[in-house]
């Protein structure tokens, strides 16, 4: 393996190395001081994230099975940032007694899912893509079932793994058809051999259904809420941003590079599903009381908006999707960060519990508000820019109707985001959550999120950088 190979594959290799290091630390470390493993993992992840930004050559490895390019690198970097944030946010929770025996497992599993995602993004072959996606899912299911003393956690785990198995089955079935009609599983070969025939479309739809499952696109989304609610909050946040983001990235890459021939078909597919997704996600979110469930549906509808960037198949759309995922990571992790902090301190996860939060914990409320506004796309925070660019991407190809439906949907979403804001600022509570001080990790992570929410929008350089690396069909 040459150094060039290492450079190209450094994300995956470093992550694997990190996983092994954590494993070694687990085995040889002092069992009394396991909490240090958290810090160790965070430092490792921090280093990996930083290294990821070093310039890197683009190239193909393994006869085209592994592809690296600027776009894919930036996607991986974005995921790394998100993962790092999740890591930091997890510390308080992991320090609890009931979790103390599983700290290193937690990090190893998370890192291995990250390896899976990175591989899947760099895939040049459906096999790598498939293994990557499974590697990114199976450990997550175990993590969802991490709270072994909670029924809901176990339920979340089983629902995730079984549904995901079904979706993988459907996806594979679709892939088998694509294979049967093209004779190859290499991305660049498939795209050349694709025609607009029924069997291929059927294969594509099944493939799409499998992917849509991962992104929680309606009607393949039903697992989302239950899993999000049942899983530990950190895992929920990880699922809702990192897993989803990775799936969006790879779907986008595949759509753009493998399926340009049937662009009309997948545009229609996306058109229908994104409308369904936004609307259904929003409609369900309205009624939710549990914040995790609430954010689950919100993330479903967010996925619908993200599809608007995909639909055009244009450079702008791609840039806006990548950019939006970045913004979304900050916003959603900001919101989850607050939920995690409060959940850790009080165990409360309901919107009603947040009544009068502003009077006791103003900073947390403000961060939550900022994050929710960013999710809703309210200026001047980054979410506004993200949504604007997504819609611009769709409008560029003339999907004005879709944009209109999407923006009308943002009103519904604004409604329920405001419900939370209302709870925190306006509602009175007999028994509000008492003032508490979060530990350093929580505050640090939230600080990064806030900075991200605020800066990502205004600093046009971020978007421009992404834009320059993006490509259209």
């Amino acid at each position, binding site marked *: 393996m040459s150094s060039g190979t290492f450079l190209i594959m450094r994300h995956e290799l470093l992550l694997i190395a990190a996983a092994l290091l954590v494993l070694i630390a687990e085995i040889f470390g002092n069992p009394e001081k396991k909490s240090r493993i958290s810090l160790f993992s965070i430092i490792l992840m921090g280093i990996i994230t930083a290294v990821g930004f070093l310039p890197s050559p683009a190239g193909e490895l393994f006869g085209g099975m592994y592809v690296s390019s600027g776009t894919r690198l930036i996607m991986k970097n974005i995921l790394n940032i998100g993962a790092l944030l999740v890591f930091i946010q997890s510390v308080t929770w992991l320090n609890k007694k009931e979790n103390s025996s599983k700290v290193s497992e937690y990090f190893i599993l998370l890192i291995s899912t990250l390896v899976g995602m990175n591989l899947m993004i760099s895939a040049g072959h459906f096999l790598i893509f498939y293994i990557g996606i499974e590697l990114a899912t199976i450990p997550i299911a175990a993590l969802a079932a991490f709270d072994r003393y909670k029924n809901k956690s176990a339920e979340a785990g*089983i*629902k995730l793994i*079984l*549904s995901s198995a*079904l*979706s993988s089955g*459907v996806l594979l079935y679709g892939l088998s058809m694509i294979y049967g009609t093209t004779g190859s599983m290499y991305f660049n070969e498939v795209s050349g051999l694709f025609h607009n025939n*029924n069997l291929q*479309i*059927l294969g594509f*739809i*099944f493939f*799409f*259904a499998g992917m849509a*499952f991962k992104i929680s696109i*309606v*009607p*393949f989304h*039903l*697992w989302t*809420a*239950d899993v999000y609610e049942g899983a530990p909050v950190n895992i929920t946040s990880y699922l809702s941003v990192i897993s989803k983001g990775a799936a969006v990235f790879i779907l986008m890459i595949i759509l753009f590079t493998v399926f340009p021939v049937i662009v009309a*078909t997948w545009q*229609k*597919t996306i058109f*229908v*599903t994104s409308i369904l997704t936004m609307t*259904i996600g929003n*409609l*369900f979110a*309205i*009624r939710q009381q549990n914040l995790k469930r609430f954010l689950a549906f919100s993330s479903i509808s967010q996925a619908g908006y993200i599809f608007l960037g995909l639909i055009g198949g244009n450079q702008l759309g791609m840039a806006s999707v990548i950019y939006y995922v970045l913004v979304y990571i900050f916003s959603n992790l900001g919101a989850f960060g607050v939920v995690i902090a409060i959940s850790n301190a009080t165990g409360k996860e309901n919107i009603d519990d947040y009544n009068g939060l502003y009077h006791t914990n103003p900073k947390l409320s403000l961060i939550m508000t900022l994050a929710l506004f960013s999710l809703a796309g309210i200026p001047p925070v980054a979410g506004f820019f993200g949504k604007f660019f997504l819609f611009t991407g769709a409008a560029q190809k003339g999907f004005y109707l879709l944009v209109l439906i999407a923006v009308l949907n943002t009103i*519904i979403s604004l*409604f329920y985001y405001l419900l939370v804001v209302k709870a925190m600022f306006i509602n009175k509570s007999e028994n509000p959550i008492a003032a508490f001080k979060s530990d350093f990790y929580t505050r640090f992570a939230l600080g990064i999120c806030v900075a991200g929410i605020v800066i990502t929008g205004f600093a046009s350089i971020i978007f421009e950088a992404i834009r320059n690396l993006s490509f259209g069909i």
Partner: protein
Amino acid sequence: MINFSYTIWILLLPFLMFLLLGLAGHKLKAKLSGLLGTFGLGIITFLSYLTAYKYFFTSEKIDGAFQKITALNFTWLQFTDKLHIDMGVLLDPISVMMLIVVTTVSFMVHIYSLGYMKGEKGFERFYSFLSLFSFSMLGLVLATNIFQMYIFWELVGVSSFLLIGFYYQKPSAVRASKKAFIVTRFADLGFLIGILILSFNTKTFDFISLTNPSGAAISQGSSIGFLGLSVMTWSMIFVFLGGAGKSAMFPFHIWLPDAMEGPTPVSALIHAATMVVAGVYLVARMFPIYAISAPVALDVVAYVGAFTSLFAAVIACTQTDIKRVLAYSTMSQIGYMMLALGVAKYGGETGLGYMASMFHLFTHAMFKALLFLGAGAIIHSVHSNYMTDMGGLRKYLPITHITFLIACLTISGIPPFSGFFSKDEILAAAFQSNKFLFAVEYAVAGITAFYMFRIYFSIFWGKDTQYQHTPHEAPATMTIPLIILAIGAAVSGFIPFNKLVTSDGKILETGINLVIAIPSVLIGLLGIGIAYIMYRRESTIPDKLAAMFKYSYKWAYNKFYIDELYLFVTKKIIFRYIAVPVAWFDRHVVDATMNTIASVTQGVSFRIRGFQSGQLQKYAFVFITGAIMLAVLFIYLWK
């Protein structure tokens, strides 16, 4: 060319006075503010007389006609290149004549109020409002363009509103002021629409270019028809609506009697002498257009004027509140003026009506102000408005008695008092052009004499009423204006109006037409005679008559139920059947639609919750069917 630019002070002074008294008045001593206001108006009066002298006697005439002089003019608000509101001073015979009327009466009222309003709360407020009114009225009179006139027209309306509602804690005063404002506002709407139509066609607001009989503007729009009448006619009718509102012509007359809730000096100034004749002034101002381009509109003016004069005169006979009687009498007299304008034509002999109208306006201002101030003096001493509470007052109020008598004789058209001359001209003009209208006016002359002497006899003669406090003559501040006005009323008939104020500015040769003069004096005397019989002493005749014509009396007493009709329209129709339903519609239909969208969303959200059943297999089912349906859709249905 004479420099008239000082006339700006005629406008500025009262405005400054208004600001001074309005903003700082409560800090001054009450008496000082009154004196200040009076003094200010004195200066204005002086300036006005100066202007009148210079205009009529020293200004240059062209072709034997008085010229319209734009003393000063500046653009206040530019709409388009041609349409712009200017603020300025236009001097021509009628504006100068009005200047005299307004300042004279106003000055008298200012002095009079020093006594009448003494000790009232809000004395300085009263004077600031009076200043505001003077400012507005003068601005109206001197307007160089129709929009300026409209502006001051509105201001006059609001000062009238403020003054009627001066006793703002008295519900009836509040109601009356509101009514006055809204009714006139409604009429002003017509005025504004008229202006819009007029300016759309003529592309100018300027009076001089509008009313130039040979100018381009005057013929604009008379050829464009709309609903059977020319556009010019429409616009003039609409403009007249505005005039009718201010001048309390039927059917906009209802506010005037109620307006008597205001302090009596205000009634004298605004609701007798000056503001209410603004409508007449407006028609006179636009007269060339009426006469040349919109004769139909002019006929409307004539008939409305005639009807109102008769209608009001009849009601006046039945009222017992002396101020109300005077108010109806005012309406009736203004009807005279309107009629006179309506029957006139532009220029020459046929323009007699125009001159007569202006003449009557002038004399009427004098004697009606006198009447009101006299009534004020009476009320001041008796503390009642009702003539049923009065009687035999001649002993207690000698000066008031004499001046009031002069005024009554004047209005009844008895020579040599001024009313005789002006009314005679009007009747002559009516006789010239329309015998029917002449007949009406002739009858009205008789009725007028009757009802005026009805109150005269009831107050000063009649039964000897026992008063709780012995009535006493008013102070000098009140009697002096009475005397001055009485002199004015008596002698102003000798002013040669035919040489000064005519439709085309040229001298009009007129004389006393005995054929008309003698019968009119006779009918006046007849009216006085009947009144003498009925009211000189306590008599049962009026009651008998009232019983005999029970229903007609009742109708007239109740002012022909016009007020009730209005009340019905406003309260019932507008409020209950339009405004309330609109408000209801807004809340329960428009808003409800918006709320329904929200509740439907929530409802749908609730209904579809079954999809999220928590059952893994149902999820899978949806997944599979979803995939299959998408496949079917995109393979077979929507390829």
